[in-house]
């Protein structure tokens, strides 16, 4: 399986969150079980970008099962009753045996957790505290796992797709939705219908407990062992008081230890039922044939036991400013976050445009705080509207020995300026021109269009892909002044300030302007690129061409990362060309 550029695909998602008005007119078909198909036949290139979305994310979880939505992103590649096993019946018996052992082990763990809570033992994970019975159960569990290993066909799902020329298989989980996507050659569309309907119809969550550990490891790498991972998690949890957006998508560690396969199955039954799903196909196919296959393959999956309910818990209105400070091996920085509005709110377009006025190489924050005052190396602001609530965030990295508090004051001065006087005509027009061009650029790639259709459908319906661009073009200078005055109030904000830890080494200057998540993305891209071989030159060049075409539509806050990524890909392509193709 050539799952090459995961991080890039994730970025594509990030890069396509702004709105546009170029009309997209798909053929839409809904099955009786409620699943929606959004189809855009685009003859020419003999490939099809195919994907589906389920309207579930971490916001739909509850205490005790945080992280379960993301865990599915892993479990869905583990096979089905047909795929991934040499003997489905024996495999099922082992899985049930494993569940029962895990249940018994869990009771021992709960007792140890209780003892730790009372201070009777230091760490419940310390093996020395385990009783003989507990150890025997763990041994039995290992034995059963070894038995299962003989029944598993590793990476079968990947292998079948790869052998048929499919590429770019991947998935992603957000606060509000989960997407699964791939590219297939134009004559292999039925394979996509077979494979995707099969994993929704008869999934088998084999290797559940080991995959849970893999996710745990992922959490350790991405949150616990990065300089600001835990601080950012704390800041997010501080910002959201009552909303479920306060917990991380990857989940709290204790939940990741405790999640059971039964809990996952319950979650699956409600949220992976066809009435909660939508699929999108963009590429070279016949719509009638696709609809017939949709009926045949996905039509057999029954509707879920109940309709998923909207999230009940609303965010409390903030009463006073919240602040935190932290120390980390990172560039000193300040993050300021205001409660604003959810995706689609009437004030959102003005907040989005406001973010663009502030950001980018020719934006106000860069010109004023980075270039003129030389206080920061990087500064940007952006509105982020989630399904149930939203926020506006300004982030800046302090330059040299400048205290982050000085940068913070300079940011407030810029925000006050937005309240005090309307933005200039040319300044506003520049942003509108970029949005107008972005409307076309984002349609260039079939893959990108497919992913956007899924995201819009998961949000307020695919039709909103056609209305959000016009809303941005309609924003006036007065609108921007009004929303700045409405939302940028001290009692409505949370502020995090990070100081550099004494031991921190100077870092790669190219990373200076990036936040922690972006650094991780860059690191991941770097690792993937280092592992890329000359066989992947073609996909790399494709990726580069696609990214170069898109660079003007990338949200300003990701611009630096995007450019660095392009630079890294260029470097790697040049190297591989040097090594030879």
């Amino acid at each position, binding site marked *: 399986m*050539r799952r090459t550029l995961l991080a890039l695909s994730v970025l594509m998602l990030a890069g396509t969150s702004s709105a546009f008005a170029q009309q997209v007119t798909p053929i839409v078909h809904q099955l009786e079980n409620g699943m929606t198909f959004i189809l855009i036949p685009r003859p020419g290139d003999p490939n099809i970008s195919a994907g589906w979305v389920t309207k579930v994310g971490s916001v739909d979880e509850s205490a005790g099962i945080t992280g379960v939505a993301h865990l599915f992103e892993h479990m869905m590649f583990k096979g089905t009753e047909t795929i991934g096993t040499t003997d489905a019946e024996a495999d099922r018996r082992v899985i049930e045996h494993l569940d029962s052992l895990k249940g018994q082990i869990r009771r021992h763990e709960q007792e140890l957790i209780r003892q730790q809570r009372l201070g009777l033992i230091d760490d419940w994970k310390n093996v020395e505290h385990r009783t003989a019975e507990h150890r025997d159960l763990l041994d039995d569990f290992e034995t059963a796992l070894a038995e299962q290993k003989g029944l598993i066909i590793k*990476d079968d799902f990947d292998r079948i797709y*790869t052998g048929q020329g499919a590429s770019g298989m991947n998935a992603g989980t957000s606060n509000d939705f989960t997407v699964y996507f791939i590219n297939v*050659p134009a004559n292999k569309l039925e394979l996509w219908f077979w494979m995707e309907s099969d994993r929704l119809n008869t999934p088998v969550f084999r290797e559940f407990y080991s995959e849970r550990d893999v996710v745990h490891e992922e959490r350790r790498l991405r949150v616990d062992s990065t300089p600001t991972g835990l601080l950012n998690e704390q800041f997010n949890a501080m910002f959201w008081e009552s909303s479920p957006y306060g917990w991380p998508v990857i989940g709290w560690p204790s939940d990741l230890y405790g999640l059971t396969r039964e809990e996952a199955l319950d979650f699956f039954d409600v949220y992976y039922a066809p009435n909660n799903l939508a699929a999108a196909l963009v590429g070279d196919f016949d719509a*009638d044939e696709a609809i017939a296959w949709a009926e045949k393959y996905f039509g057999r999956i029954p509707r879920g036991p109940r309709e998923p309910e909207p999230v009940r818990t609303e965010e409390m209105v903030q009463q006073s400013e919240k602040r935190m400070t932290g120390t980390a091996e990172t560039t000193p920085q300040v993050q300021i976050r205001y409660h604003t509005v959810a995706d689609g709110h009437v004030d959102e377009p003005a907040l989005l445009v406001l973010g663009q006025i502030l950001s980018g190489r020719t934006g106000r924050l860069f010109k004023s705080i980075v270039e003129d005052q030389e206080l920061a190396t990087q500064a940007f602001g952006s509105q982020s509207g989630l399904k149930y609530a939203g926020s506006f965030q300004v982030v800046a990295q302090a330059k040299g020995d400048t205290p982050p508090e000085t940068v913070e004051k300079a940011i407030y001065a810029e925000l006050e300026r937005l309240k005090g006087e309307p933005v200039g005509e040319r300044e506003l027009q520049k942003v509108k021109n970029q949005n107008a061009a972005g409307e076309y650029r984002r349609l260039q790639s079939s893959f990108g269009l497919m992913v956007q259709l899924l995201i819009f459908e998961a949000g307020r319906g695919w039709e909103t892909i056609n209305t959000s661009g016009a809303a941005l073009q309609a924003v006036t200078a007065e609108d921007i002044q009004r929303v700045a005055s409405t939302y940028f109030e001290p009692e409505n904000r949370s502020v995090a300030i990070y100081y550099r830890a004494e031991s921190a080494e100077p870092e790669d200057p190219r990373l200076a302007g990036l936040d922690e998540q972006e650094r991780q993305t860059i690191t991941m891209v770097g690792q993937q690129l280092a592992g890329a071989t000359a066989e992947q030159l073609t996909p790399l060049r494709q990726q580069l*061409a696609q990214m170069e075409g898109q660079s003007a539509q990338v949200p300003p806050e990701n611009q630096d990362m995007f450019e660095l990524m392009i630079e890294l890909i260029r470097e790697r392509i040049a190297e591989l060309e040097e090594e*030879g193709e």
Partner: protein
Amino acid sequence: MSLRKTRQLALLLTVILMSGPAALAQQEIVDHPRDLVFAGLDFEPPDASQHRYELEHGAIAFVVEDHELPLVNIALSIRTGSFTAPGQATPGVASLTGSQLRSGGTASLAPADFDEELDFLAASVGSGFGATSGNANMNCLTKDLEACLGLFFEMLREPRFDEERMNLAKSQSRQSMERRNDSTTGIERREWSRLMYGNEHFSTQALTAADLESLTTEDLSAFHQFAVHPGNFLFAVSGDIEPDMIVAALNSYLSEWPVGEAAGDVPEPGFEPQPGLYLVHKEDVNQGRVSLGHLSTRLGNPDRFALQIMNDILGGGGFTSRIMSRVRSDEGLAYSAGANFGFGVHYEGSFRAAFQSRSEAVARATAIVLEEVERIRNEPVSEEELATSKASFIESFTRNFASAGQTAGLFASFEQQGRDFDYLNTYRENMAAVTAADVMRVAQEYLHPDRLVILAVGNVDDMLAGDPDHPDVLLEGLAPAGNVQRIPLPDPLTMQYPEQ
């Protein structure tokens, strides 16, 4: 197949059907995807000669139209790079010229004004020069094409090379330089090149702090004058343009531009790698990075198809390849592993298998890779491996032409490398014709266990000590020709290697 598309988006109708299963495809669902029957894919690659234009002063353009969206993309590759320079130029001048071409403003526009103009037009423009080619690109709305072409060519022909922007770039470059020995990835890359191509070749010349310090805007202007002229230009144009119009527009910029000095040939290394085990010590890391291989062959090699399949099965094919599945499945032996058989454009490429693993597992993982290199030479690959590998190449071939931009770019890279375009027309049949016997033959002919260079970067003491549970497998015991050498870390600013 024509890549010219009509305005399909405008023609699509929104049809919302609430139900009603179509009468098509009512057969039973097959039990396993292997039983699905697929129609053949009717695809012929577009004909490069239909898209090729000779411009003024020897420049070439490939133009691929796509009128679906009002966007134009121009990717210019420039025959230059660090392999060439006017007279006694300072190393590093090519790279800095390439990045400052875009950053440093133009004759009439200060850098910030140039940025502002492009942002207002919502255009994206970039540039950069590598080892054997340079590039500059531009993407804009059709309605702004004239204005953007004006800015693009002003940048190409009359860059300002603003001193302040150059100094900023130099200080960033200097900071990266100080960190040269920090990452094992960077060390591995550098030392592998030196082991394959020697210390004298341009491709292994590292920029020193003194070189960087000495570079002036005059140096950049001189390199620009030498390298950036129509005789070195190859355009890939795609999107919403009429070929005649864009050719005329490009010519109007090129015709008054005198042709400069030809770039000349890329020098060959003329170096014979020495088989052996080479160790680079990095105290503070717990992971070893290993590269293992030797020189390979060049692009035009007729055995290319069998070689690609051989490499794919051995280590190129990701999770399904032998090296990956053996090294990974052996519990935590390596986080990633693979192999690449390179086909050099200007000189021989290299065959390189590589992995990263914890220090004590390096010896065992190396032994496994060596076993796999021997196995693919001595046993025919299985029919299933062969079929999966061939299918993945053949079935994904069309992805090369997924957009007008990719098609134009692919043609341009063939032109640049002097390759025969017929390769694209016969690719799938040539790939399909490869047999298990071919794979074994090329493995025997092109993989040479006796010539292997093994490079290991990491904590050398831990790597040499190996795994206490497997005392029989030691890294030194695997050294080709019994040759074990240590490579010290150079001073990151002078790139002088200490005497051992």
